């Protein structure tokens, strides 16, 4: 501990502090940092060399570098698997992917914000906590279970909701078995599953707003809505922007389990996304080169979306994510 005391105040002298000095002083902390860094190196960066598989003819029991470059009819053709993957089905999946994610973004993104704003206005603590907890719950259900629930509720003849509708003398609504209805169900289930959980970060941001601002607003005669509009929302604006950027980055990504659990043969034309396309045509058929090619494509496009959104947010005067 003596050493630390001796070096304290180095920064104030204006001299450039050497890395080794920091190291000496805070080595315990750096050691702690080593753990996540090593984790990232082993599990996130080291596997990246396998991106090469996208450009090679995958062989089992062969070292990555020994695998031959992808070739058609003897000619080296490193983009073979990209060309193979980009068929009608792929473009269809890409379209669905973008459309479903945009719908999710459009309807699903504001939901937790609105929920957080409403919760924030609740004066009864007990009620607030109860509502919050119940809203978090669906987040912990797997999509397989959620689909099971939706079958119980929305199946054309076996579903509870449709049985009620039919009792009132109306036709059953094809929530799950007709494309347009399915999209609504899909987006709705997504919102239901995630809005509670998603609101946590906004509630945290709201909690960080200086209460004096509200007091000042009250003095100026602001009502509840004006306070929400002029204090709360601007207070969490940067949080919203950061999350929006991250969401835009994932516009051609998306989770596999949600769409795979919810799709069925009748709605496949709108329900096949890139993740399920890759599973069915790549992984399931042991075509690893093709799967990797599509995955790489997805990542690169996702990166552009992320960069684009980030630049845009800086232009709009926000901080961006870096």
């Amino acid at each position: 501990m003596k050493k630390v005391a001796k070096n304290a105040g180095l920064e104030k002298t204006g001299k450039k502090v050497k890395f080794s000095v920091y190291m000496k002083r805070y080595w315990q902390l750096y050691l702690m940092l080593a753990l996540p860094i090593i984790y990232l190196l082993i599990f996130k960066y080291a596997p990246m060399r396998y991106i090469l598989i996208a450009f090679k003819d995958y062989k089992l029991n062969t070292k990555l570098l020994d695998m031959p470059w992808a070739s058609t009819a003897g000619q080296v053709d490193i983009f073979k698997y990209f060309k193979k993957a980009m068929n009608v089905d792929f473009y269809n999946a890409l379209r669905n992917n973008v459309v479903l994610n945009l719908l999710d973004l459009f309807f699903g993104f504001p939901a937790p914000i609105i929920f957080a704003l409403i919760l924030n206005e609740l004066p009864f603590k007990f009620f607030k906590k109860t509502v919050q907890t119940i809203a978090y719950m669906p987040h912990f259900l797997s999509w397989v279970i959620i689909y099971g629930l939706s079958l119980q509720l929305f199946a054309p003849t076996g579903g509870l909701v449709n049985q009620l509708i039919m009792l009132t003398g109306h036709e059953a609504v094809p929530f799950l078995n007709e494309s347009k209805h399915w999209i609504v169900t899909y987006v709705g289930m997504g919102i239901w599953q995630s809005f509670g959980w998603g609101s946590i970060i906004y509630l945290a941001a709201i909690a960080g707003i200086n209460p004096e601002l509200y007091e000042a607003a009250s003095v100026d005669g602001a009502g509840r809505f004006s306070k929400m509009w002029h204090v709360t929302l601007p207070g969490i604006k940067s949080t919203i922007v950061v999350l929006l950027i991250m969401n835009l980055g994932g516009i051609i990504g998306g989770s596999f389990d949600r769409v795979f659990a919810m799709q069925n043969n009748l709605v496949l034309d709108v329900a096949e996304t890139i993740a399920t396309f890759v599973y069915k045509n790549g992984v399931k058929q042991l075509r690893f080169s093709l799967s990797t090619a599509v995955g790489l494509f997805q990542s690169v496009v996702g990166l552009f979306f992320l960069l684009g959104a980030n630049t845009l947010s800086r232009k709009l005067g926000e901080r961006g994510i870096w």
Partner: protein
Amino acid sequence: MKRKLVALLLAVSMLLALTACGKKNAKDPSNGELVDGKFTTTRSITVEVYDRDGKTPADNNVWTDWIKKQMLERYNVEVTFKAVPRWTEVDQINNLLAAGEAPDICYTYSYPTILTYANMGGVTDLNPLLTQYKDLLPELWNWLGDENIYYDQDPTTKTVWCVEGRRNNTYRINTFVRQDWLDKLGMKAPTTTEEFEKMLVAFKDNADKLLGKDAAQMIPMMLTFDVGWTAAPIIESFMDPKITDKELYINGYDDRKFTENGTKEAIRLLNKWYNNGLIWKDFALYSSGDTMSDDLCKAGYVGAFIQNYDYPFRNGPDSFNAMLAKTYGPEAKFVAINCFNDKNGKYTHFSYSAAGDRKAFFPLTNKEPLASLLYLNFISSPEVIQYLQIGEEGINHDKLADGAIQIKAVDEAHIAYNQNSGQNIDLTMTCNGLRLSTVELTQKSLAYTYAEVDPKDVANAMVVAEQDAVSPKNVNVGEIASEAEGTDLTGKRDKTYDNAVVCSVADFDKVWDEGMKEYLNAGGQAIINERKAAWEKTYGNKENLD
């Protein structure tokens, strides 16, 4: 000080974790030979077993324990079982193969899966091994013979990627109707497609009479997402009864008859039935492995369905018929009928061929090919198959007066002896269908192999399954490369089947033709063309095999 200690601990544990990863599994490198048919050092192999969510764990029960003990005693081979869910086996085995975690002995119904993996260099070529060790494998040869062992041998490269299990009976699929419903309505079992339709309409119109307060649950005919299977006899009855072997082979990429002439008209009929409310509305929403359709049949809401020839008899007290009898009385049951007539008035439908059941193969990760072959040899021995199929006397079966074996459900005290699959079929890897010590005994016992089911119904189902049945022939013209191309053709097929059944009558042609076009463009046509060329290369102008 405390902080330092924590940091030190973390650093040490990390190092340990890293070194542990790098450590190689120490393995005995010696090639211990067989002495008196037994390994001198104990060998370990893993073996796949289907998991049907039975009463005991699929990979750890009385039967697997028995096999383990026998293998250890006979060959000094230690066996570990690996459970793979039955109804998604192809997906699961793909995932295991991809992860390098497949068992040493795998089995699957899907040859294209094996072929794809073999083309990536992931499957052991059995040909040299079989030649080298033939003398050690007498039971395997006795049971499977050259025909099944070399069934899939490539005519040019001579590679053998798998051996084909054998079916001891070739019954495949049946149509079942509720006998008690027919009786209640004073109807006779239908004998033509037209009468079948009339029967469905009668079921629907008399829902109140047949189901009382549950009338709204009425499902005249069950269908599943796998239309090519659960409507197979209907589809097959629309095919040309004189279809040539060549035509059958060319369109025979899978057994769902999607591209056959006539299939479209069969589905048009289903589409009509669906739109008239004769078919279960929710069928396409439940995918492979879901038990909803079974549950509805057991609950007694279903009038007719098409499935494996013995489907309503399976699983003793949990079988369709046992469940129906429990709820509605002994006269409530499904019986097998033939009623889908082809244009000649016969009930042409396809049975299995004796070869071509499950295919056993060794992934390249198998380091014990000889021990694995010995396992196949063991599991093909008549006494092993018989014991696994009928189990213990007094617990799993009784002997009838004429010597026939009557299978019975195990009681609670002997629940450990429950067979998770009928006749332990999931364990008798090379054998499908009852095979007792003598052919005579087998024949005599066939109808008695289902616990808590009337043997007469079983016997009838076998007669029905055999009537006008056509057995496909083995066409081996070498590898069809486009079949290993890897497009999800099965998915496209089912998608078109399902959508064509549920669309409006007016849209039917459009939906079917577009779906078919998509299927053919995605690789279906390439397979048909390649199969045609391969046939013509091997058999010339021949339309039929001898």
